[in-house]
């Protein structure tokens, strides 16, 4: 083929106009933007459900919600936040940043990328329909009240909304698997000439591990809920003891997915921290290779630790001991990561712009989740803590600092690059303090009334826990409202503001190739159509 023909095929004329730009998009930046917008919408939907939960728990006794509806809110809040908010947001960041970071012109499989995204609104529609199933299909049973874990036999007895939820998980699972395959292929095949694996920015490494985790565990969840579907409608007894099945099997299948899923939610944010902390400490990341090694160990241990979620189900001594030891061992790679971050900050020329404020607070608060995690890993202690609000406090400390705040940090860190405008630093700092303080006031007391014996997932509680629950609820409303400020800051930044430079942050290119900072802010529709030339990088 001659040069002219090559030019004609490879030549682009900017984005298409109107809805076609978004519906048929194969552009990693547009798809990344759509992922992030979708995640934001889901955050407010899942957040509204959390507000209802806390409103109900404001006082003992029944306030606003029917018990079944309360349980449905608990179920959908979790499913929306995990599958609808955090995972799509992390995928949005990956879409936006990975091609820019590795000097690729786009994702490896752009049409697959489009499909991965557009499956999400379909899945979300199914999820929302599950809440309306009792109205849409009267006589087919009530609301799904199983919690996000969907344990049988309750999930086999649940109404038709359960079928909607099963298909939701199928659709969102397919989306995640396709996105992961795309990201892994992009990372392995599309790096700019001269960029070795150990030259990659840590966010890229984090997503490489995340992608592999997802393709290993997501099929197991999909298979598990398919068995559930068959038990519900086609006469099988996978999980029915009366037919020779075993309900505990579902717990194993669910948590074989569910525990690595925690690292799926966590690792992208760890990658973000490993980008932000060197930037604002103005020092190269401490222990680059050890952090990659730590992620590899976390990946491996995370796959064989699942049954610590089910100590109370009555497993034999041997496996229980195995899962306890493996779970405690996980604190080693996690501790290593936190040490890497602290050593990066050590004697750095630190400044505390909003992304760095989030990063430092995450290191502190996530350590707290690590401490309660070790407590929960110990079998005799866990038998006391199981299914109490202590567990709720633990996993919200793990998932909000460990994941959600990392996403906020990433948004503030990269928003000037995406939009070409600096965000309002003063408002962003107000958001940070408001968000983090109200988060802590919401969830910290839950340790206490959890330890004192308040069970989770139950609409009512002993009046002895009333005062701290009221405190939790008031702080939760404040925490919820703070996100409106986040939305306002984003909209304000998109609409205008002080112009951002290409490099955006003074220290953004320290210790990495920093290819994402070499393109204009905002980047043009197509970037790196000609591969960048890289110099060898020293670690």
């Amino acid at each position, binding site marked *: *083929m001659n040069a002219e*023909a*090559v030019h004609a*095929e*490879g030549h682009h004329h900017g984005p298409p106009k109107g809805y076609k730009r978004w519906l048929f998009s194969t552009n990693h930046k547009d798809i990344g933007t759509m992922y992030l917008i979708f995640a934001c919408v889901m955050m407010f939907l899942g957040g509204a459900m959390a507000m209802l939960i806390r409103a109900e728990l404001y006082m003992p006794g029944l306030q606003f919600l029917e018990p079944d509806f309360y349980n449905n809110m608990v179920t959908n809040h979790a499913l929306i936040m995990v599958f609808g908010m955090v995972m799509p947001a992390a995928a949005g960041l990956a879409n936006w940043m990975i091609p820019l970071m590795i*000097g*690729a*012109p786009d994702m*490896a*499989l752009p049409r*697959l990328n489009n499909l991965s995204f557009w499956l999400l609104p379909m899945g979300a529609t199914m999820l929302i329909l599950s809440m309306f199933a009792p109205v849409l299909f009267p006589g087919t049973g009530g609301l799904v009240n199983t919690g996000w874990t969907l344990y049988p036999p309750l999930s086999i007895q649940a109404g038709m909304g359960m079928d909607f939820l099963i298909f939701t998980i199928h659709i969102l699972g397919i989306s995640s*698997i396709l996105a*992961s*395959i*795309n990201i*892994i*292929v992009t990372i*392995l*095949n*599309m*790096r*700019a*000439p001269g960029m070795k694996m150990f030259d990659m920015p840590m966010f890229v490494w984090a997503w490489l591990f995340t992608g592999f985790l997802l*393709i*290993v*565990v*997501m*099929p*197991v969840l*999909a*298979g*598990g809920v398919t*068995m559930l579907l068959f038990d519900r409608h086609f006469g099988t*007894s*996978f*999980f029915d003891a009366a037919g*020779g*099945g*075993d309900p*505990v*099997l579902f717990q*194993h*299948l669910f948590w074989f997915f569910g525990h690595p899923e925690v690292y799926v939610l966590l690792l992208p944010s760890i990658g973000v921290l490993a980008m932000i902390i060197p930037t604002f400490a103005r020092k190269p990341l401490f222990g680059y290779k050890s952090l990659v090694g730590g992620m590899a160990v976390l990946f491996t241990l995370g796959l064989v630790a699942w*049954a610590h979620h089910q100590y109370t189900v009555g*497993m*034999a001594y*041997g*496996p229980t001991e*195995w899962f306890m030891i493996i779970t405690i061992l996980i604190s080693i790679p996690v501790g290593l990561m936190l040490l890497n971050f602290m050593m990066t900050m050590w004697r750095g020329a630190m400044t505390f712009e909003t992304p760095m404020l989030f990063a430092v607070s995450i290191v502190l608060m996530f350590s707290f989740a690590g401490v309660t995690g070790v407590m929960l890993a110990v079998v005799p202690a866990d038998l006391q803590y199981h299914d109490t609000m202590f567990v709720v406090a633990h996993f919200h400390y793990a998932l909000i600092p460990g994941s959600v705040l990392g996403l906020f940090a990433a948004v503030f860190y990269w928003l000037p690059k995406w939009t070409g405008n600096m965000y309002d630093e003063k408002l962003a700092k107000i958001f940070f303090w408001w968000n983090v303080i109200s988060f802590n006031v919401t969830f910290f007391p839950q340790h206490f009334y959890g330890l004192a014996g308040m069970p989770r997932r139950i609409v009512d509680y002993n009046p002895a826990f009333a005062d701290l629950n009221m405190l939790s609820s008031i702080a939760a409303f404040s925490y919820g409202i703070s996100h409106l400020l986040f939305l306002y800051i984003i909209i304000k930044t998109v609409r205008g503001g002080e112009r951002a430079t290409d490099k955006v942050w003074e220290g953004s290119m320290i210790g990495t190739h920093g290819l994402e900072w070499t393109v204009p802010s905002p980047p043009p529709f197509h970037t*790196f159509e*000609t*591969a960048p030339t890289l110099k060898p990088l020293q670690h």
Partner: protein
Amino acid sequence: MTNSDTNQQRQELARANLRLALVLGGIVLLMLAVMFYFWPGSQVPA
């Protein structure tokens, strides 16, 4: 393999991407197979 300029290089890259995607899809199927091996549940830690 890197991103590339000529049409032939682009086609080679596209084929390499597809091959790797199929291998990864194979892992998905393998995990499904491993999971069904555990049915009806007697072989998981009980």
